[in-house]
């Protein structure tokens, strides 16, 4: 390791965390949260490309109604692996493990996370899980869908279910430990003066996400263990032949997986709040409502899982309760959408890449969320359950929402992370292209779904062909929209213009020091005496003055 590690030099630009060591070892054995964030950035990008390649195969196959590109079995493996990889190896860690890891200590004035070594260990656990998943792919794939429903997964599938389950099981522990780390950090490591209601909403969102990670993931873990045991040693907990109940598996799975969808959106909401407020030079409207609604989403989110099982044979009474609660979980989401819009009011708005992504997020999340309500009205769900309507719903939120937020956040904090500026024009272009490509890809799926096209279909009736073709064409546009930031950011990390310390003149604590930050973030203890988001409409080009405290 190099000798630049000691804290005294930290204000000088040469002593950044990036220059604190150049060897592979200094990266792989680091416990600096900022370097661990990089490990995740690289890993999840690889997995995004793997998942995207599978999406590409799916879209090629679906361009025509006949199953003529790959065999039915290969297709089934494609969407299963696509879902597994995208959910557990890309989207769940996407914001928390990258931006969250990098920014949480900086935003709360801490020198690192509460448990830096545990943080590194989490990445190794993630990698171990990833190895199992890559093995699954190489050995021939898994064909259960990302939901692993029994008894298909436990007794009937002939694919590599155990390897896939083991990968997901292991990566779950990485999630749990990351969540644990964030919870302890936010509780115990805040700088003096940084009260809960002075925290940036990004920190709130990661905190709530962590609660879900810690409380929901173990239920998934035990469920997967039971399926693994059934396939390996024959412990038949879900075996209908013994009187076991396949619906029990679904209850356990969705008890995790519905909260998990909020793991996949709350961090995006946090990012959006930061971006919109900074680029419109206005404090986030209704800050406390925003913070409380994050918590409300996290908690009510634990009580709605049965809306995935309206036609499974669960009792009508249970369906009614789950349906009502699903509508209620939308109320805090509505609060957020309205407050984001209101933040723009009387702002001084500029349209850097981050802002475009954030506005795209608001629109696409709203549409995705509202179609969630359509699904929550039981009578309609009976018709559209397991059709492309559902596929469109969750891609609107997860791809249109969360991936947009992830890319927006990446652009926004890129100067902080790398000390370099990306190309603004290319950035804006990529935001616009992916917005167009996205709608082109997934809007037709709403229509196909309502017209009755089931999902997970290798070949399909001809009446859906034109809609699916539009969708496939849209995916090409979308692919360009995703390739551009990859090139833009990747190129700028090495050759971009040097960034000033605070290029957006943003108010957050993370922007108060040098960019990129020194190894231990802050050389002197930080004291916070300021409300969050102390923006003024006329301060774009003047350095921020601490607000009327």
């Amino acid at each position, binding site marked *: 390791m190099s000798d630049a590690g000691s804290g005294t030099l930290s204000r000088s630009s040469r002593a950044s965390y990036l220059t604190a060591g150049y060897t592979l070892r200094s990266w792989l054995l680091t416990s600096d949260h900022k370097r661990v964030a990089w490990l995740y950035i690289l890993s999840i990008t690889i997995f995004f490309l793997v998942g995207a390649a599978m999406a590409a195969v799916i879209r090629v196959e679906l361009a025509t109604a006949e199953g003529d590109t790959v065999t*039915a079995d290969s297709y*089934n493996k494609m969407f299963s692996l696509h879902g597994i990889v995208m959910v557990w190896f890309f989207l769940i860690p996407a914001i928390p493990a990258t931006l969250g890891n990098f920014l949480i200590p900086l935003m709360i004035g801490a020198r690192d996370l509460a448990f830096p070594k545990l943080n590194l260990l989490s990445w190794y656990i993630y990698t171990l899980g990833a190895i199992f998943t890559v093995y699954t792919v190489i050995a021939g794939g898994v*064909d259960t*869908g990302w939901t692993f*429903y029994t*008894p*298909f997964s436990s007794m*009937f599938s002939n694919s590599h279910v155990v390897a896939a389950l083991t990968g997901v099981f292991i990566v779950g522990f990485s999630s749990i430990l990351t969540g644990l780390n964030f919870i302890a950090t936010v509780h115990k490591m805040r700088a003096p003066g940084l009260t809960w209601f002075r925290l940036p909403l990004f920190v709130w969102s990661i905190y709530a996400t962590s609660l879900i990670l810690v409380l929901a993931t173990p239920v998934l873990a035990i469920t997967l263990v039971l399926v693994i045991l059934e396939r390996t040693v024959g412990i038949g907990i879900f075996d*209908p*032949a013994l*009187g076991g109940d*396949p*619906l029990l598996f679904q209850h356990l799975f969705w008890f995790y997986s519905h909260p998990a969808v909020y793991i996949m959106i709350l961090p995006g909401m946090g990012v959006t709040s930061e971006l919109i407020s900074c680029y*419109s030079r206005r404090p986030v409207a*209704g800050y406390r409502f925003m913070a409380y609604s994050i918590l409300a989403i996290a908690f009510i989110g634990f009580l709605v899982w049965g809306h995935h099982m309206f*036609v*499974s*044979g669960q009792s*009508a009474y249970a369906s*009614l309760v789950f*349906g*009502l609660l699903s509508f*209620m979980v939308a*109320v805090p989401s*509505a*609060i957020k959408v309205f*407050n984001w*819009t*209101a933040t*723009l*009011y*009387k*702002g*001084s*708005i500029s*349209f850097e890449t981050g802002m475009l992504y954030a*506005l795209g997020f*608001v*629109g696409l999340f*709203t*549409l995705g969320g*509202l*179609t969630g*309500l*359509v699904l929550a*009205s*039981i*009578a*309609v769900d*009976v*018709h559209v359950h*397991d059709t492309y309507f559902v596929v469109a719903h969750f891609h609107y939120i997860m791809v249109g929402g969360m991936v947009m937020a992830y890319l927006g956040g990446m652009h926004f904090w890129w100067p902080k992370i790398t000390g370099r500026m990306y190309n603004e024009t290319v950035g804006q272009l990529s935001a616009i292209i992916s917005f167009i490509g996205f709608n082109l890809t997934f809007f037709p799926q709403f229509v196909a779904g309502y*017209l*009755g096209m*089931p*999902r*997970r279909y290798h*070949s399909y*009736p001809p009446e859906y062909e034109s809609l699916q073709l539009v969708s496939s064409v849209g995916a090409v546009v979308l692919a360009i929209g995703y390739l551009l930031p990859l090139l833009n950011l990747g190129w700028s990390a090495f050759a971009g213009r040097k960034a000033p310390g605070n290029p957006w003149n943003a108010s957050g604590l993370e922007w108060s020091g040098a960019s990129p930050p020194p190894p231990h973030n802050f050389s002197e203890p930080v004291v916070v005496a300021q409300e969050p988001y102390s923006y003024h*409409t006329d301060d774009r080009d003047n350095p921020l003055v601490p607000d009327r405290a």
Partner: protein
Amino acid sequence: MANAELQTGAVQASEFAADVDSLFLVMAGLSGIVVAGIAVLILIFSIRYRRSRSSMREGPPDFPLALEYTWIAVPTLIFIGLFVWGARVFLQSQAERNDALELRVVGQQWMWMFYHPGGARELNELHIPVDRNIRLLLSSDDVIHSLYLPAFRIKQDAVPGRYTQVWLNAERTGRYRIMCAEYCGTEHSQMYGVVEVMEPEDYSLWLELNAYDTTLAAQGERLFNAMACSGCHTSGSTIQAPSLEGLYGRVVNLQDGSTVVADEVYLRDSIIVPDRDIVAGFDNVMPAYNDQLSEAQLFMLIAYIQSLTLAQ
């Protein structure tokens, strides 16, 4: 008629389909308005308050709290309204209906089998009369499938190890798609069929042409003897077992003091997991049949036991 064209797309073949569509259209319209409203507001703000325009921002930027509460309360009320509407349509579709035609459905990788009370069987095809209440009782021989009739906007999972049911009342004659909506393995996307809704006269004709020598119940009776059920369940057998006559639909007193109505689910459990509910006054000696009977055979046995009540 058999070569009539398959009707696909947005066709509504039942009243329920129309109810679902209205609810959906209202929700879609509302969603459209909300999304458009948000988009327009964002656009207006983006133009009026863009950085290069500098004169429009006087006045306090704070929002009245009342506004915040309004946009909490209004959506909440709308949400409750929409939920109630959806719940009512759903409950209606679940309500018991009199005098229904009883059909039995078994899903199996990768086909649908339908059993008519008269004994007729169909594979991936289903013939039903128009304007008649129909009750479909579903089960599966292997993994979970889902019977999906898009033209009727109904869908119901067929789950191994249990019965599920769905009501149907077709309003328009014609041929419509049957699909499998729950992923069930390799040929999930090939597990489809056609439902043909017929005028009552055509239906009777079809029944005649496809008549089986025996009814479903008679097939069950044969099985009842062949599986040696009759060895215990006849008066005069050495083993004391309850008489099955008049059992279906009756209230049964169980050993643990509770009671249950003998419906299909109860009969099914009594045969494959006799341990679950033991009849008061009897020993738990009946063997479990879960490895020996297919779902179709179970349907036959149950039809037979049901016939012992209906005959009375």
